[in-house]
């Protein structure tokens, strides 16, 4: 910090002498008796601090204690190990998962790959669509009609994962002796997009359809609701900007390119950071409700892998914790990294 003389001395014009800056005296006092100052202001505002307590306790007990519990992935039973192995024994779960070479390790790598693929598809298809929807909403001039459209498109977001996955399950279910196949299967068969036998088998039973079903249902669920933020940014643009562009001879596309896009860029960047931060936090609930042993090949992600090995049945908590630890550390690095890049590139950052 730069120290300036004016911080310490001020010129007293009446007496014509320099004397101590009274503000700095207070500042010095606070610095000298910092803890006294803390105690005093807490005593004065104790109600304010009391208000914080319930929230802090909830987060401490049920958000931070699990993080401490996560360290169990480093806790290995030492008694069975040789002395020479004990030094790095804390990493034995990681070693088993990463370099085990057996079925477990193969499943781990499969889950890691699936996590990246599913979230990458989600980013490619799920992220731009809400922006496009917001641009479309902006074109609808009638307020009533737009409200109706908005209410309908936000709607799926408020359905539970159970309801959503039940609907998906029913719409693509297999045909059997007593019931016919799901209506979406029938539509796809009629349009000759899939052969009859494939529809007959039920799309959820076949690994090759899992990711598309996952992404499409995700878009169905979230695209409309995701457009709210962008739409709010677009209607915030001053009409004079459009008028100026029109006078300069800009057509619709040029207006999009030079007026709308720059105005909502900061919103896009922020939403992108948020999105990348949650990239590896795939909704395990949805995957758990949709996948089956037959589709593990394409559907099993890190959290479901951890769940199967550590929660279901008797379980090995250390193993699942180690898998999730890796997943979440990568996720945190992604969010912090994208934040730094965004700040460098566009001067906008979330944190």
């Amino acid at each position, binding site marked *: 910090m730069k120290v300036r003389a004016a911080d310490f001395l001020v010129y007293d014009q009446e007496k014509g002498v320099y004397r101590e800056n009274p503000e700095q005296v207070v500042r010095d006092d606070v610095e000298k008796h910092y803890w006294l100052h803390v105690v005093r202001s807490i005593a004065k505002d104790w109600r*304010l601090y009391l208000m914080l307590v319930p929230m802090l306790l909830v987060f401490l007990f049920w958000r931070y204690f699990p993080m401490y519990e996560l360290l169990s992935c480093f806790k290995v039973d030492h008694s069975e190990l040789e002395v020479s192995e004990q030094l790095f024994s804390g990493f034995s779960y990681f070693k088993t998962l990463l370099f085990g070479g057996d079925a477990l390790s193969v499943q781990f790598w499969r889950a890691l790959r699936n996590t990246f693929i599913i979230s990458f598809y989600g980013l490619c298809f799920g992220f731009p669509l809400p922006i496009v929807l917001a*641009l479309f909403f902006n074109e*609808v001039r009638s307020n009533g009609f737009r409200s109706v459209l908005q209410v309908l498109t936000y709607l799926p977001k408020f359905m539970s994962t159970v309801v959503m996955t039940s609907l998906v*399950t029913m719409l693509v279910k297999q045909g059997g002796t007593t019931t016919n196949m799901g209506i979406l299967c029938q539509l796809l068969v009629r349009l000759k997009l899939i052969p009859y036998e494939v529809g007959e088998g039920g799309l959820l039973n076949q690994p090759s359809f899992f990711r598309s079903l996952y992404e499409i249902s995700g878009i169905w669920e979230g695209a409309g609701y995701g457009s*709210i933020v962008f739409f709010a940014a677009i209607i915030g643009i001053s009409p004079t900007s459009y008028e100026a562009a029109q006078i300069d001879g800009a*057509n619709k596309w040029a207006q999009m390119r030079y007026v709308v896009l720059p105005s909502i860029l900061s919103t896009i960047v922020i939403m992108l950071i948020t999105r990348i931060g949650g990239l590896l936090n795939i909704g395990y609930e949805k995957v758990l409700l949709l996948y089956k042993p037959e589709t593990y090949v394409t559907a099993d992600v890190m959290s479901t892998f951890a*769940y199967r090995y550590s929660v279901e049945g008797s379980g090995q908590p250390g193993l699942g914790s180690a898998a*999730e630890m890796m997943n979440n550390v990568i996720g945190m690095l992604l969010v*912090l990294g994208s934040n730094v890049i965004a700040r460098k590139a566009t001067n906008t950052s979330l944190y």
Partner: protein
Amino acid sequence: MKRKLEITELIFKIISYTLLTIFALACLYPFVYALSSSISGRHAVEYSQIVLLPKDLQFEAFSSMFSNNSFWTAYSNTLFITLYGTIWAMFTSILGAYALSKKRLLFRKFFNFFLVFTMWFSAGIVPQYLNYLATRKVFQAVGIADDKWLVVIAMGMAAMNIILLRNAFEGVPSEIEEAAIVDGATEMQVLTNVYLPMSKSTIATVALFFGISRWNGYFWARQMMLNQNEHPLQVYIRLQLERYTNPDLTSGWNEVYATDSAIYALIICSVIPVLIIYPFIQKYFAKGTNVGGVKE
């Protein structure tokens, strides 16, 4: 020149209207289909004759569901969890967010970081599961044997919602607060009489978020509630779905409605309360979810 401008605009407008309408109908369609299927006759459902409107009306699927006691148990459990869960979450969040919105709060940066960090890094399913198991032991030792209270108190907090509230409170001009204090208002009165009325739209939105997530909660309820009488509606629906899609049951099925209708009827019943409340609060969304606090 003028004419060319109109044509590009017109094309874009037509595209917007068409695609938006299609998407909106696609969002609505599964629910209409579910409703129609739940009240259609068995033959029509099993041979996929339902496309949009119901056929061979029957209401047996609904009436047999309503006559089932476990359905009502599940429904009342969900109501319990939603009501108390939302109250508890709003109570802790509003108090916390109010304190965080005050510039004079010491260690404000630390408390904010304490919240935001949970958005970057979460422990994951397994440690959380172990943590809830431990919490249950503590709760039982204290004398709260009902797992419903575990779900209400320990689950469902969201840092994002607290930040939304905090930003709304920060937007209230401090002059109004000072005026209230001069008039002799206590801290609590300032909160309830000044801040809450002035950030109504955010409070409505956040309460809706909490309420919906409680109503829709499934995974942890299924993991933690071992007693069938405590199951909320979502767990009940899932168990029924697993039951009704089991070939052993479907082959010996002899009701006037199809097994599918039973599932669709359940889905409709779980969706209706959300459908009733949501349009009223929908208009606050754009205003209420203003994240703000962007560092430029």
